């Protein structure tokens, strides 16, 4: 009779314990900051793995999203005779929302899952234990550089996404649909505020970078050291990252743009 209740309680406690472990890991990651700073080589390798290798997909997606915004925005705005506000619409949606959010989702799928698999496999093949036995802290030496690599790469990728998207919108609106190019830029410049829009967008993407890499590293580090455990860790990384990014985006938007 009380079984379902007990099961609910058990899973609740397990979830809390996992959350606690995740936070302990975060403390460990932050504790490895100095170790990463004195070994920039490790960090560079991770910026490569997370940033450089994600550039292509991010830039291409940004271009298409910008072009779609240009098309859709033009059709909606021209009904109100406000087609020359297209620049505002494209830039505001990209810089405030789509840039940070879509980039975070892409990075979670492209790099986050790879991170989780890599760490999970290192655990399954006892490489992490071997490091422990060599008196090397795997959190400091293996996980922290990846963490900062993600933290650093994410805002830069999001900026590329938004910039390419704005150009894509320009290409559609001005190049294809014949809007005035001057209006596209000047309206955008008049309404997009540097500190309100661009800086807030960057803050968002830094937060997303932290969350996505943290989730990926935790899932890998806490994975059951089997093939199935690693595959579950990669799946969870993508699912949890997506939910966390979208949920956090709502909270951040409410904090930043809700007057």
């Amino acid at each position, binding site marked *: 009779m009380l079984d379902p209740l007990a099961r609910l309680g058990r899973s609740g406690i397990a979830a809390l314990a996992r959350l606690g472990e995740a936070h302990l890991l975060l403390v460990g990651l932050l504790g490895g900051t100095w170790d990463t700073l004195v070994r920039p080589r490790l960090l560079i390798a991770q910026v490569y793995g997370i940033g450089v290798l994600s550039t292509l997909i991010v830039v291409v997606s940004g271009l298409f999203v910008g072009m779609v915004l240009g098309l859709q925005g033009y059709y909606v705005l021209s009904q109100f005779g406000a087609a020359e506000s297209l620049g505002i619409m494209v830039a505001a949606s990209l810089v405030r929302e789509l840039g940070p959010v879509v980039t975070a989702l892409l990075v979670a799928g492209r790099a986050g899952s790879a991170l989780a698999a890599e760490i999970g496999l290192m655990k399954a093949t*006892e490489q992490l*234990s*071997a490091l422990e*036995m*060599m*008196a090397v802290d795997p959190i400091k030496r293996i996980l922290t550089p990846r963490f900062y690599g993600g933290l650093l790469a994410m805002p830069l990728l999001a900026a590329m996404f938004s910039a390419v998207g704005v150009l894509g919108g320009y290409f559609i609106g001005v190049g294809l649909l014949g809007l005035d190019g001057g209006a596209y830029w000047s309206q955008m410049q008049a309404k997009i505020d540097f500190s309100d829009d661009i800086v807030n967008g960057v803050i968002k993407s830094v937060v997303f970078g932290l969350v996505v890499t943290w989730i990926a590293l935790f899932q890998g580090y806490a994975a059951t050291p089997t093939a199935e455990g690693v595959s579950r860790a990669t799946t969870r990384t993508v699912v949890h990252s997506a939910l966390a990014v979208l949920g956090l985006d709502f909270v951040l938007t409410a904090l930043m743009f809700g007057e």
Partner: protein
Amino acid sequence: MAEGLTGRGASPVGASVPPGEPLVRIRGLRFAHGERLLFDGVDLDIPRGGVTAVMGPSGTGKTTLLKLISGQLRPASGTIEVDGQDVHRLGRAALYRLRMRMGMLFQSGALLTDLSVFDNVAYPLREHTRLPEAMIRKLVLMKLEAVGLRGVQAQLPATLSGGMARRVALARAVALDPDMILYDEPFTGQDPISMGVLVSLIRHLNDASGLTSIVVSHDVSETLSIADYAYIIADGRVMEAGTAAEVRASRSEWVRQFLDGLPDGPAHFHAPAPDLMRDLLGEA
């Protein structure tokens, strides 16, 4: 420091294990993986400067024992002292200092897959010493030469066979010239020649640099041929302990079955299970 009836320094089973301060002293060790009780009050001494074999059937917890000694796992109760320090009471920094004096050869090798063979062996040197690169190179090449794999230094671990990977891992384990080496199944997956080389290498390493070696294995004859002392563990207990010769001459029925590899006897090849017929005829 009270150790019950055995008292400090006394050997756990009989008088056959040598006197003198042991390097590793295990008392009243209890440990369980989930529901499964692997050790139920194990006392064990590893003497300094010798090769001690720990043998037992597959799945008795030999690997687990090494992980307990090196502080990767925590016992449910009991103490493990290495060189007088209780491993599980050390802080992280002290534990790492202790581990720098231990080398461990993992059953799987556990080489870092994104580094070349050379870089794998150089890894502990680069982490823990400030030696110039030229010096590190010399040391690494010497260690690789000792395991006969200098020729593959530029390859990635994925391109090695399991046996070769284990030998590279051995070179890495001894890179920092530790005081103690824990070998987890060093002989499995080796061809007869490299097996012979490895057996004499372990003995040689031990004698040349005054190491203490713990060899976990179920290759009875090879292990006993180089061991000074031997323990046989099964069912969470120490079944037999003593010098290699004593163990080999054991009269215990169980030990005889294990050493001689007999199918029938007090030990069971099967994991505990209900009656086969009942299982087969049971719920379809």
